[in-house]
């Protein structure tokens, strides 16, 4: 009987239905899948939105000690983003501990030194270990720097000197990135990794249950006594586990897409450009990877000594692909070359990145890459079928 006949036989259909029922009725697996796919993106997006809100909407509290000596300076600091309090005196360290994000101290000698062109010192106190410290320095330097430049230009002009003389050149920074390309840099790395993680986490519990679990409950023995081939058994298990893993990653994608509406992406210059076609393409491209993840997890779980052993092994190993993706992304490797895109995991990550940013992918390369992944799935199924005939599977050795 050919493989195709095997797969579409009535026996196989019954087996597949049984596996799907088992997997989709496993409350523990469903809780893990739902927990990860719904909570993880929600936490990520929620914390992102919250931190952006904190950064963009919260005023910095600045205390200015001795503002009477330099009213122009104090006036320059007024505006959006700052809440200025004028103090006659105070100890900067205590003020920082109290409620202020930064303390600007202007000395008594400021006015006389300023008029005598002696570059009087202004002291800016910040707490470098606080969240607002760095932002305080940057904003105050920007505001005061603008004023300083204006005054310098006025002084030079008053003395008949062209201010340009003091600037041999002007460095003009032009950011040619588009919201789409900035989206690729941020969302293109974050989202694919999250989707692949969702796929692995959601597949993990059902793959352990359907292999190591069946062996521990000894129901695998009953299954192997039926007139079914090892290939049929593995394929049915892989399809059932894939259905959970793939659904989990699609749910994550849906949650992420909906959540992007809550994030002020435009305000940070990032654009989420994926439309319906891109989302459908992403879903389809994830399917071969979902199959590969399922079959590899089942193989590993079948090789483990017990249910608990399988849980430990898979929880350790499922972090590896994500770590690998992060390392590869941070390295200097040109991942967009065709060769890299044929490698499972890296290929999918590259395609998802591009689609996330609304960019086109090579259809032929995606097809060939997916075929490579599916070929590996086929190979693993053969290995899995052989593993089912191992006597040690039944505890005999």
């Amino acid at each position, binding site marked *: 009987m050919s493989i195709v006949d095997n797969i579409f036989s*009535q*026996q196989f*259909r*019954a*087996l597949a*239905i*049984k596996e799907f*029922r*088992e997997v989709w*009725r*496993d409350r523990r697996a469903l809780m893990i899948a739902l927990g990860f796919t719904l909570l993880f993106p929600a936490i990520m997006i929620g914390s992102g939105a919250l931190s952006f809100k904190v950064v963009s909407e919260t005023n910095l509290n600045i205390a200015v000690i001795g503002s009477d000596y330099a009213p122009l300076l104090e006036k320059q600091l007024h505006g959006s983003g700052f809440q200025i309090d004028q103090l006659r005196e105070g100890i900067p360290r205590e003020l920082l501990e109290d409620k202020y994000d930064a303390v600007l101290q202007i000395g008594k000698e400021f006015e006389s030194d300023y008029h005598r062109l002696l570059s009087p010192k202004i002291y800016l106190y910040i707490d470098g270990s606080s969240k607002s410290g760095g932002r305080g320095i940057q904003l105050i330097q920007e505001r005061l720097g603008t004023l300083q430049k204006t005054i310098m230009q006025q002084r030079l002009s008053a003395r008949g000197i062209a201010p340009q003389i003091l600037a041999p050149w002007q460095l003009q920074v032009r950011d040619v990135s588009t919201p789409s390309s900035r989206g690729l840099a941020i969302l293109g790395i974050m989202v694919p990794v999250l989707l692949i993680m969702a796929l692995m986490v959601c597949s993990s519990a059902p793959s352990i249950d359907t292999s190591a679990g069946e062996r521990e*409950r*000894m*129901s695998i*023995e*009953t*299954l*192997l*006594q*039926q*007139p*079914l*081939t090892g290939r049929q058994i593995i394929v049915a298990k892989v399809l059932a586990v894939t259905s959970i893993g793939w659904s989990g990653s699609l749910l994550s994608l849906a949650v992420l897409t909906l959540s992007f509406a809550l994030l002020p992406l435009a305000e940070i210059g990032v654009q989420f450009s994926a439309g319906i076609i891109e989302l459908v393409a992403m879903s389809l491209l994830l399917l071969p990877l979902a199959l590969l993840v399922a079959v590899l997890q089942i193989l590993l779980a079948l090789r483990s000594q017990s249910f608990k052993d399988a849980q430990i092994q898979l929880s350790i190993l499922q972090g590896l692909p994500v770590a690998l993706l992060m390392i590869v992304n941070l390295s200097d490797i040109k991942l967009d070359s065709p060769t890299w895109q044929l490698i499972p995991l890296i290929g999918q990550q590259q395609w998802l990145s591009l689609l996330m940013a609304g960019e086109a992918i090579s259809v032929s390369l995606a097809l060939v890459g997916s075929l490579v992944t599916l070929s590996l799935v086929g190979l693993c199924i053969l290995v899995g079928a052989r593993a089912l005939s191992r*006597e040690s599977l*039944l505890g*005999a*050795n």
Partner: protein
Amino acid sequence: MIKVKSVCKQFSGTPVLKDLNFSIADGQITALLGANGTGKTTCLRIITGLLKADSGHAYIGGLEVSKYPKEVRRKLGVVGDREGLYERLTVAEYLSFFASAQGLAGDNLEYALQSVREELELSKLWNRRTKGFSQGERMKVSLARALVHRPSHLILDEPTRGLDVLAARLLRRTLLRLRAEGTAILFSSHIMAEVVELSDTVLIMANGTIVDSGTPDELNTRSGSNNLEDSFVKLAYGQQVGKSQQGEVA
């Protein structure tokens, strides 16, 4: 007919079965008696095709198990030492799956399911998931699974272990009916009363081989004992029953 011919098997260099030979005719119940670790389960697993013999062959209905595994499995019903239930399936779903896996479909499938439902009194359990079933209920479902495709050969590994009186009676009644229908039945057990009541032939196994076989009466006569338990101890281990205790008293 179930036939085992010159079967040897070892695990990690330790021989478990040594030149095992026996045959069971259709319409006969044969009990396999042996202490723990004598190779009973290994022998049953070789007959069902789960394990491969290092040498020798097992035959079911004239077919060599290792050469025709799928055909053999259609002729065979097996109740293992664990019930092998799927706790997230209802009894109906569970039996329907195994009947379909055996190739039953349509009206034949429905008829087979109805038959085991009535014969093994499963109506009350039919739409319940098997999680939380009592030992007796689990055994009934497991037996139904082994019988749903009407196999001509039945193998049971300690089937009455943990069963209450009613469940054990139902099992015995079912086995006797199947024998009358011509099914070849091989079961292992430690319960001598059950072996005497059910079996036509008893195989006594020790150290990986069959040391004696016959009807319970024949074995009692040969061993000079008046019950099967004593006969088993004498024939399997060559011990004089009660000898050690008598020696201690003297």
